[in-house]
């Protein structure tokens, strides 16, 4: 395949960015999208040009590092991560636009690489269960009903890639935050910190400059792991419950 790529190039956080156009040829439909970019970069290096910077690591769809907006869609046309998107989703002669995550809470570092440390700070605010090493009771001491365990798992699948934020017209991080709140709040082990967890994480989310949620649902459509939109509703319920209970104390 022969393709025309229009790629966002930005030297560093302070520089102005712009789209640059490149041609690539000899692209196999079995290549992953990132292997296609590897091909471009090998050519750029040999020409003495700066290769396109992008985040990637496991290339198995689980680490959450890769983060490209492809033709306007976070992670491109398939419901998967960019690393698991294959060139068979494109046609010979296509022009493909490649941009970084666009959100004020995710500033660009270089080209297609953005700073997602805001997500780490949301987890630090309460996305954990306090259980210092060594203090754990026997694992079977607390059975967890299978539906609750499955609900927890479904939300724990979030890979923290940030596609939800990139897809949201408001740049909101509600889906990311709700995934962790729901994972931990449904479990008996998470119950003691149930209220503080949701209140603190939501407060941190607001502080990081993410937008407000208007339930457009773009986040859940873009999520490569299928975290459902109703996750946000569950978190809102948790938040209201926590606000009432804390007010009563």
């Amino acid at each position, binding site marked *: 395949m022969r393709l025309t790529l229009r790629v966002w190039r930005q030297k560093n956080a302070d520089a102005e960015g712009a789209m640059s156009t490149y041609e690539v040829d000899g692209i196999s439909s079995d290549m992953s999208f990132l292997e296609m970019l590897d091909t471009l970069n090998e050519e750029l290096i040999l020409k003495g040009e700066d290769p396109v910077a992008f985040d990637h690591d496991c290339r198995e769809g689980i680490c959450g590092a890769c983060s490209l907006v492809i033709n306007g869609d976070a992670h491109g046309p398939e419901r998967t991560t960019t690393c*698991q998107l294959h060139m068979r989703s494109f046609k010979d002669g296509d022009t493909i636009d490649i941009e970084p995550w666009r959100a004020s809470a995710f500033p660009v570092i270089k080209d297609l690489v953005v700073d997602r440390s805001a997500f*780490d700070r949301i987890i630090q605010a309460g996305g954990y269960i306090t259980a210092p090493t060594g203090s754990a009771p026997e694992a079977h001491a607390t059975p967890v009903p299978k539906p609750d365990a499955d609900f927890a798992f479904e939300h724990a699948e979030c890979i923290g890639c940030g596609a939800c934020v990139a897809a949201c017209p408001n740049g909101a991080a509600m889906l990311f935050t709700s995934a962790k709140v729901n994972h931990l709040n449904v479990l008996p082990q998470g119950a003691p910190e149930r209220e503080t967890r949701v209140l603190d994480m939501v407060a941190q989310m607001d502080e990081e400059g993410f937008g407000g949620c208007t339930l457009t649902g773009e986040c859940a459509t873009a999520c490569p792991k299928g975290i459902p939109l109703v996750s946000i509703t569950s978190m809102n319920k948790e938040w209201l419950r926590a606000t009432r209970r804390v007010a009563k104390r």
Partner: protein
Amino acid sequence: MTYTDYVTGAPVADTKAPAGPVNERWDKRRFEAKLVNPANRRKHTVIVVGTGLAGGSAGATLAEQGYHVVQFCYQDSPRRAHSIAAQGGINAAKNYRNDGDSVHRLFYDTVKGGDFRARESNVHRLAQISVEIIDQCVAQGVPFAREYGGLLDTRSFGGVQVSRTFYARGQTGQQLLLGAYQALSRQIAAGNVEMHPRTEMLDLIVVDGRARGIVARDLVTGKISSYFADAVVLASGGYGNVFYLSTNAMNSNATAVWRAHRRGAYFANPCFTQIHPTCIPRTGDHQSKLTLMSESLRNDGRIWVPKAKGDTRPPNEIPEDERDYYLERIYPSFGNLVPRDIASRAAKNVCDEGRGVGPGGQGVYLDFADAIERMGRGAVEAKYGNLFDMYQRITDEDPYRVPMRIYPAVHYTMGGLWVDYDLQTTVPGLFAIGEANFSDHGANRLGASALMQGLADGYFVLPATINDYLARNPHQDEVTGEHPVVQEVLAETQDRLNLLLSVDGDRTPDSFHREVGELMWEFCGMARTDAGLRKALERIPEIREEFWRRIKVPGTGEEFNQSLEKANRVVDYLELAELMCLDALHRAESCGGHFREESQTPDGEAARRDDEFAYAAAWEFTGTGQAPTLHKEDLVFEYVHPTQRSYA
């Protein structure tokens, strides 16, 4: 003197493992280890490099104990370390199934699975700790698979006959890592861990014979800085990416362990690499990495190839009696669940015979037709759905209808920095945990044991043993950036990067990585020979010489520069590859993942030579391209007596 003219130095001994019954040694060591008063712990700084299962759990636990932890990862977030990609599960001797499991059986299985090249006292401790790990992870909210009664589910894995593997669908590594990451996040928020993401360790600082810090590069600004501590813990993972194509993450690398080796830490059993039998075959030269399909698939999938050579019919058209379910045929009692090294080699053998399937004949079938008929599609989907989806996405084939094609790929490295029972390297104050050390898996790791070892080291072993070191060295002189040793290490690092940037040749870092990787796969991969290894040993220095003449790295060192990062990692692969080949050459026996064609039984199984090679080989660095010194640690088997492994 050529590289292969190594000399054998003084034997190396694990001086910290106490004597006495194996099941009392860990208690005894913990009791004899000195403690640091809780009030004094905050005066100690510990550097932890890496945030995978081992590093993440160690950083969190040391911080909980009151130490000041300074932690590093090259990723943009500690949550992305490659432990996250582990799929299948984690072993623990809970015996919840009442199927005859015990700590002793897990210990026995691991020593036997490692083909009698691991240290008994370490492996026993690992088996003991395994049960605590499950408790710890459940308390953190790790969503393990559960039965309808609300209790934990388990499954079986290769190389064992009990069901002791706890799992979270096909994402066990992800869930365990997020547990450790969340515990670490709590300590970062509390100010007990100073976290440096997007920062890569480039060298070790050793002052007066003790590890006192590291030199690291901020990958965003390019700034090279020194960081100081009372002890340094390397949790930087394995070195499988030497092979270019592996199941490791693209940026996983050997720089931290190799630079530590150059500063005096012995490197043990570098030739012990694991080739995983169930990976998706490569599709072409563009391939950047290989994807693993969890070994758990072998629970229900049946592996076969056509009986006839060159049979090109689609799999569904090949009748039952013309298929060779070769693992079930050769190993009737373990069948498709033989250990990884055996399954991989068997796949290679049938492909070498010309019976491989798919492009280039480099694949075998993993067939779920029987399982779907027996359990129903729904049950197969519930158990393996995400793996089937991943397979379909990559290959564009539907594994519910057509058998999967699989082929072995480099997956894990059992070798690593030599450590004693306390997980301390030969450099005092430098510890290595998780895949970065060589300690527990001998010549072959059993499935679902990497997660167990990473978390055992990080949550339970290191936090106990590092106390002893810090208690015995309470008042070390302060090291600052002005110290001549620090100045020297900083200058060396800067010079190396400057050199990479200044050559301005005509080959990319990736082209060299690919070249050395292909060489290693051919001569130091699934089957090794004296002649092949010698050929590789001749070729590697030539590639190295060419590298420094022709490498091209665009841009500068004072910016985000992924080509520079890559080139610097390739520098270290080009040295480590040589040591791996030498180790493989010197070990003229077959054991576990190390198969020397000259040493096999009449029916083609690995033939160990215990009289000559029942030792761990710990290599001491003497200079780039110069023959290293071999130090042997004799392995004593008091409880599990070496026999030829039989899975027939």
